[in-house]
């Protein structure tokens, strides 16, 4: 059971769980803003770029 859970964790989340959390937060923020702001489409691409940079910078800093 533990190995099964581990497989799905590795398959979906991968080796940086912060990316998955960042994506969830970015989608949540987009959903909130989309109710009141017609241009909320700009939020997700910018948030995705920010999440990617944070993950890259963290990986580079550790090496």
């Amino acid at each position, binding site marked *: 059971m533990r190995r099964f859970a581990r497989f799905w964790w590795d398959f979906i989340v991968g080796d940086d769980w912060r*990316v998955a959390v960042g994506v969830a937060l970015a*989608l949540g923020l987009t959903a909130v803003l989309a109710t009141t702001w017609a241009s909320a*489409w700009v939020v*997700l691409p910018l948030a995705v770029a920010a999440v990617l940079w944070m993950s*890259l910078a963290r990986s580079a800093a550790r090496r």
Partner: protein
Amino acid sequence: MGVTRGWRSALAGTLAASLVLAVIVGVLGPALTVIPIEVLRLVVGALLLVFGLQWLRKAILRASGWRAVRDEDSVYEREAAAARAARSEERAGLDWYGFTVSFKGVLLEGLEVAFIVLTFGSTQGSIPLAIVGAVAAVVLVVIAGIVVRGPLSRVPENTLAFAVGVMLTTFGTFWGAEGAGVDWPGEDASLPFVLAFVILVSLGYVTALRRRRLALA
């Protein structure tokens, strides 16, 4: 496996795994069509984004020199040596090692393909068309393999990983935002602009990280 343990067992494992994948797509495909499209796009977008960003992250780190590029020649030699050294055990007339390694490899890698086929197909309303696309890709890869007749070291692995990451991130951003309630300007016509944005940002990160590495050297 084919080269080191024999083609019969390797092809049997590949065929068995392909059948399992076909059953997964056949069962899950119709089930996905009953989920509301907005919910489906949100979940699919989120998963594609997580997958895509992981691919992109690794490809950018390799392209900028922060992570070693995979040496496919040495990986191939290591794996081939391990396969040759493995104990022989015959079951159902097959070399069991060759069969199980081929089966597991095709099943695990194929799961990701099956997921992409199901999600792309269901969000765009045509799973059969997505299956045709996946089968065409398999045929293309097999033809390329026959023409090249060489190990995977000849494939520009990181460029492919970069391209896959860009595509998954682009579709993940597009569908994720739609699922979250966003209306893209120009609807589907905005997809090429999202793609261009992801490519430019990714290339920009490669340049920035390369400069950072040179500055530290």
